[in-house]
């Protein structure tokens, strides 16, 4: 449980949370129709984009900030759109919270983003380090890149880091650039609606993207009646990398423990993911009914702002927090007639909020689901904070030269004309042809996990939990410094030249792998691990950072073991992986 000190949203509806709220309460939607030539993509699209006037204003404001005072006009103009959004929003909340990272060395920046600065640069760890340093943070930032659940994933990790007393305050900022890269990707997946999206509606045809930046500042919990991030969960369906489980397995594994921990009668609203795709909304309706939440009012906000990717969990939580505080439940833009099978309680109209707590849910590629409870005031939780202890059981290392299991070399028989990873696959796995569909990052992480889990079976013998049986007590946490750079490069190539559509054939399968967390999804699917899956990007992988992130995974009381490590795939000749199996020590 962590206290919320400050928040900010910048979108097409305004540059402050209040401006966004005012616009939404007037019934406005930020979604507009854009011609395909604006981005040189294959078809027209509907989206909400931060207007040029706003980005100009953000740059102007930043130039007056101490952090950017030394910059020339040229240097300010060179700042990436991504950095401008993050810097503006973060500085806004730091001022509100009276926090100065230059004076307080224990403040952390957590960035929530699926693609970072992808239009300008692909080195996400470096991007984060540069931005954090400019803003005066004395700690190394953490990037959470967990597909569309990143916003809640980031808050959940931040809350756990605060509970473990590693920091005094954590600034969680999320955004994505809605440019040619992601628009092409979603178009190749045929995920878009040609019109404004219609969450949960019988005529829904797909999603719209939205551009926003949102920031929440968290600190240690307080007895004051301020809003708190109460608790959250991240769980994997272990079903498919780009489609949700029909039975809403992952969503329920997130929601049910929260309903044990917190009184569902205190929930004013459930703010859903509601992307308006056929499958997501159906899955969420199943989750709502199975969780016994059919009568609790629900809503979805993507019909007003679009799907803001890395910002979504933050934007939607902030908006729900403030409206709930004012006794309001926002309607679901684009919804008219329910087109999902689970019994739900949606509305096109503003409703009255009786309570002062809410549940937020999200789902994302890689099979990942997230849910979190927010409340006004500090509610009693049934979970006492226990010290976290764990042991390292096994480790695997893979480089282009060698494979080592528990530091002992495993000779690999080379196959002429085939990549080293294919040779490892043929020798050690050979019964999972989906391996060939994976990109380099996923192949590497998948193989390392296979060697690790095969070794676990060998060492434990009879007493071991058999493989390939559904379990939700094992987390998969992977991290690196370069995100999915190899797949990003491949996808960018499939877009041909940057300014026209000659040679423009965006590959849907390659686009899916430009989400680095897919590797954790592949491991989850093959092994039927329905536990937590996380992907982080760091400026550098340090023992301290690793320890904090693995400890954070064990903060979920259901997690008894964690497969964790660095999985870095820069190109076909430059990659390395160090993966470990950790087990909770209950003594």
């Amino acid at each position, binding site marked *: 449980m962590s206290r919320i000190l400050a928040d900010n949203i910048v979108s097409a509806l305004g540059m402050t949370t209040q401006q966004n709220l005012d616009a939404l309460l007037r019934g406005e939607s930020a979604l507009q129709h854009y011609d395909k030539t604006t981005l040189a993509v294959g078809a027209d699209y509907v989206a909400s984009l931060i207007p040029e006037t706003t980005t100009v204003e953000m740059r102007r404001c930043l130039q007056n900030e101490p952090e950017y005072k030394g910059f020339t006009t040229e240097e300010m103009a060179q700042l990436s759109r991504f950095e401008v959004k993050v810097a503006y929003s973060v500085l806004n909340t730091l001022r509100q919270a009276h926090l100065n990272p230059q004076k307080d060395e224990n403040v952390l920046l957590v960035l929530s983003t699926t693609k970072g600065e992808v239009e300008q640069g692909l080195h996400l760890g470096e991007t984060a380090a540069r931005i954090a340093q400019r803003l005066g943070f004395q700690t190394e930032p953490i990037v959470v890149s967990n597909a569309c659940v990143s916003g809640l994933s980031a808050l959940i990790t931040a809350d756990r880091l605060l509970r473990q007393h590693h920091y005094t305050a954590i600034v969680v900022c999320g955004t994505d650039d809605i440019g040619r890269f992601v628009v092409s990707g979603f178009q190749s997946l045929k995920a878009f609606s040609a019109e404004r999206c219609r969450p949960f509606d019988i005529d829904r045809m797909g999603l719209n993207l939205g551009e926003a930046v949102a920031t929440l500042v968290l600190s240690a919990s307080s007895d004051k009646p301020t809003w708190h991030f109460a608790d959250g969960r991240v769980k994997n369906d272990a079903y498919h990398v780009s489609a949700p489980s029909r039975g809403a397995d992952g969503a329920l594994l997130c929601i049910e423990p929260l309903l044990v921990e917190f009184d569902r009668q205190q929930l004013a609203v459930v703010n859903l993911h509601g992307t308006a795709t056929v499958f997501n909304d159906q899955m969420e309706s199943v989750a709502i009914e199975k969780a016994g939440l059919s009568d609790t009012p629900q809503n979805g906000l993507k019909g007003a702002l679009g799907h803001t990717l890395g910002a979504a969990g933050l934007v939607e939580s902030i908006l729900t927090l403030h409206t709930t505080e004012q006794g309001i439940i926002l309607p679901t833009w684009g919804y008219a007639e329910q087109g999902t099978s689970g019994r739900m309680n949606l509305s096109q109209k503003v409703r009255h909020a009786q309570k002062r707590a809410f549940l937020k849910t999200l789902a994302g590629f890689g099979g990942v689901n997230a849910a979190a409870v927010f409340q006004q005031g500090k509610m009693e939780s049934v979970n006492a904070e226990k010290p976290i202890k764990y042991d390292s059981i096994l480790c695997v290392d893979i480089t282009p030269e060698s494979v080592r299991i528990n530091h002992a070399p495993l000779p690999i028989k080379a196959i002429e004309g085939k990549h080293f990873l294919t040779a490892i696959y043929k020798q050690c796995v050979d019964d999972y*042809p989906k391996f060939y569909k994976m990109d380099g990052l996923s192949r590497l992480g998948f193989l390392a996990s296979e060697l690790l889990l095969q070794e676990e079976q060998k060492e434990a013998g009879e007493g071991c939990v058999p493989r390939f049986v559904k379990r939700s007590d094992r987390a998969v946490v992977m991290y690196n410094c370069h995100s999915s750079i190899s797949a990003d490069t491949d996808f960018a190539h499939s877009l041909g030249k940057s300014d026209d559509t000659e040679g423009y054939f*965006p*590959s849907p399968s390659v686009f899916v792998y430009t989400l680095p967390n897919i590797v954790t999804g592949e491991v989850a699917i093959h092994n039927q691990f329905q536990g937590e899956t996380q992907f982080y990007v760091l400026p550098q992988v340090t023992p301290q950072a690793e320890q904090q992130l693995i400890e954070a995974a064990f903060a979920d009381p259901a997690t008894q073991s964690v497969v964790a490590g660095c999985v870095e795939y820069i190109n076909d000749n430059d990659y390395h992986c160090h993966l470990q199996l950790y087990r909770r020590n209950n003594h």
Partner: protein
Amino acid sequence: MTTITTVTCNSIEEITINILNMDELILKLKEQIIDVLNLEEMTPDEIDTDAPLFGEGLGLDSIDALELIVLLEREYGIKLASPTEGKKIFTSVRGIAEYVKANAK
């Protein structure tokens, strides 16, 4: 038996499609399918021309269907309106070949 046909073509690609007979087109498609769908362990002879592509047979999924849509556009200039249209065409390799023969630009 040799048939001489006069055909007006606007591009090298068009000439190629019109010269390939059905068997050659089917083989070419199999090679392309193996390539774009990363079916690395398969050879063209292992793909049954008339077996269903989705469900049983090759057991392809929704992302594979989308990649086949890109393949048709990139290699044969055929633009499909939606994945639903794709479902009707992607019945088997022969199904795709017949559609390509009829619609390649």
